[in-house]
C-alpha cells in the first residue's frame, strides 16, 4: 500500500491481492543502489548482449558494457560466439576500442595495444613480444630464468555465453543458472520463430531522464495506454488482451481489434507480443510488420538510462512502410519517455516512500519482486 513515511515501508508484497506494495522508492532514487545492481542484478543474471546476425563471420566482434564490465563478444574460427572481458591478462589494459554491434569490428586476433600481448579468438595467449622472452634490462635475471607464458593460464577472462535463436546473452557469474531456466517458456517460443531470418535494419538510441526501472515498469503494464497512447490503442482490443507472468519473463499479449494479414506477423496469434526478459531486455513483435524489435534498457546512472532500440526486417535496407513502422514505434517511445520522466520528477522528490500496484500491474509486481529478491540475495 502507499506509504509516505519511509519508516513504514515494507518489502514488495508476495502477491497483489491485498497489500500490493511496490518496490520501495529508495531503490529507484538512492545512488548506491546502482552499484548494488551492478553486482546483484547485472552480475547475476543472463543479460542480452546483441544479435548473432551482426557478427556472421569468424573474427567479427562488438563490445558491450554490462554491470560495469566491458566485454568483447566475438565469433570464433569454429563459428561459436564467445565473450571475454576487454581486459588484457598482462596488466589489465583495455584492449579493443568500443565497437557497437551495428558497426562490428573484424580481427584475426585480439591484440592489446599496450605491450602487444596477442590472443586468438578463443582467448588463449598466442604471442608476446621478445621483451617478455628475455631479461636484457634486468641485471638480476638470466634469460634462461625467464618464465614461459602458458597460453591457457594467461588466457583472457571468458564470460558465459548462450543463445535464444540469434539473440546472444551473457552471464558474468562463475556458475550461473542455465539460460533455459531463466528464460523458461520464452526460449521455446522465440526459438519456434524464424528470428534468425531477419537482418538488423536500424538502431535508435535515446537517453531518458529517469531511473531505468521506472521505464521497465512502464513498459510492463498498459493501464496507462488508454490515456497516453491514443493512436496505438485504437488498433488494440484491450479487454481481450492479457498480461502473462512467468518466473523471469512476462508477455504482454495485445489483441488486435481487427485481423492483420498473416504476412504482417512473424507469429501465429492475431496480436502484438511484447516480451520482457528480466532484467533489462525486451522483444517486441508488433504484429503489424514483418519484423521485430528489441529494447535494451541500460542504466547510465541513477537518474538516466539509454534505450537502445533495434529493428529487424527481412532486408537490412528499410522500405518506406518499414520506416513508417519505425516512426510509429518511435512515437510510442516518445509518449512513454514523457510519462516516465514525469513520474521520475515526482519520485525523486522523495515524497513518496512506497507506491502501490493495481490488479493489472501484476507484471510490474513481478519485476519489482525480482529486483527485491536480487537486492536481498
Amino acid at each position, binding site marked *: 500500500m502507499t506509504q509516505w513515511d519511509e519508516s513504514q515501508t515494507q518489502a514488495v508484497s508476495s502477491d497483489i491481492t491485498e497489500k500490493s506494495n511496490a518496490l520501495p522508492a529508495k531503490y529507484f532514487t538512492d545512488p548506491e543502489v546502482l552499484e548494488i545492481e551492478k553486482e546483484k542484478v547485472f552480475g547475476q543474471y543472463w543479460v542480452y548482449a546483441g544479435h548473432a546476425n551482426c557478427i556472421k563471420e569468424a573474427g567479427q566482434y562488438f*563490445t558491450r*558494457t554490462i554491470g560495469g564490465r566491458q566485454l568483447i563478444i566475438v565469433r570464433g574460427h569454429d563459428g561459436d560466439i564467445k565473450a571475454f572481458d576487454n581486459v588484457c591478462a598482462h596488466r589489465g589494459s583495455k584492449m579493443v576500442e*568500443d565497437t*557497437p554491434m551495428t558497426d562490428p569490428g573484424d580481427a584475426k586476433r585480439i591484440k592489446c595495444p599496450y605491450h602487444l600481448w596477442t590472443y586468438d579468438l578463443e582467448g588463449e595467449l598466442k604471442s608476446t613480444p621478445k621483451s617478455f622472452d628475455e631479461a636484457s634490462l634486468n641485471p638480476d635475471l638470466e634469460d634462461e630464468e625467464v618464465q614461459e607464458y602458458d597460453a591457457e593460464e594467461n588466457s583472457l577472462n571468458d564470460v558465459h555465453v548462450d543463445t535464444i535463436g540469434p539473440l546472444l546473452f551473457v552471464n558474468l557469474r562463475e556458475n550461473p543458472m542455465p539460460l533455459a531456466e531463466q528464460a523458461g517458456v520464452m526460449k521455446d517460443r522465440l526459438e519456434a520463430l524464424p528470428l534468425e531470418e531477419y537482418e538488423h535494419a536500424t*538502431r*535508435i*538510441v535515446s*537517453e531518458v531522464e529517469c531511473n531505468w526501472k521506472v521505464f521497465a515498469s512502464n513498459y510492463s503494464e498498459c493501464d496507462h495506454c488508454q490515456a497516453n497512447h491514443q493512436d496505438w490503442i485504437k488498433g488494440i482490443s484491450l479487454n481481450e488482451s492479457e498480461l502473462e507472468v512467468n518466473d523471469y519473463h512476462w508477455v504482454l499479449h495485445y489483441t488486435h481489434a481487427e485481423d492483420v494479414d498473416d504476412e504482417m506477423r512473424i507469429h501465429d496469434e492475431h496480436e502484438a507480443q511484447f516480451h520482457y526478459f528480466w532484467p533489462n531486455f525486451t522483444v517486441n513483435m508488433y504484429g503489424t510488420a514483418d519484423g521485430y524489435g528489441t529494447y535494451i534498457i541500460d542504466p547510465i546512472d541513477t537518474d538516466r538510462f*539509454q534505450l537502445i532500440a533495434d529493428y529487424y526486417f527481412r532486408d537490412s535496407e528499410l522500405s518506406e512502410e518499414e520506416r513508417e513502422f519505425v516512426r510509429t514505434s518511435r512515437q510510442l517511445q516518445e509518449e512513454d519517455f514523457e510519462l516516465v520522466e514525469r513520474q521520475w520528477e515526482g519520485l525523486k522528490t522523495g515524497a513518496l516512500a512506497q507506491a502501490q500496484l493495481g490488479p493489472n500491474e501484476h507484471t510490474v509486481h513481478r519485476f519489482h519482486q525480482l529486483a527485491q529478491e536480487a537486492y536481498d540475495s
Partner: protein
Amino acid sequence: MSTQDQAPYVAVCPECDVDLRTETPNEIVEFYRRHYRVTGHDVEFERAQMGLDEDVTSGDIKDVVWQLQDRYENGVPVGVIAAVMSDRGLSIGETLDEIHEVRMTGGLYEPQDDHLGAF
C-alpha cells in the same frame, strides 16, 4: 519557456532524432561518447551559446585553447572547444580526434579530466 528550452548547449543525433540540452558543455561530449559507443553515430551541436566569437579568431585547435584558457581557472572544457570547432565545420568526433592528435605531440595537456591547456 522551460529551463531546458533555454539551455545554452544543445546537441542532436540526426539519425536517432535524440538530443541533449544542457548548461554544461562537457555533458555534450559525454553524450556524444555514450551515443557513439552504441551507435557509431556522431552527434552535432544544434546550439552553443558561448558568446566567445570576438575572442576566438583561429581555426587551429591549439590556438583556440590558447585564446580561451585565460577565461578558465583550470583548463578549457573540451565541450567548449568542440562547440567552437563545430562552427568551423568539425564534428564532435573529429574535434576529439584532433585534440588527441595534438596532445600526442605535446601541444595540449589536461590539467583536469576533459579540460585542456595549451603549451
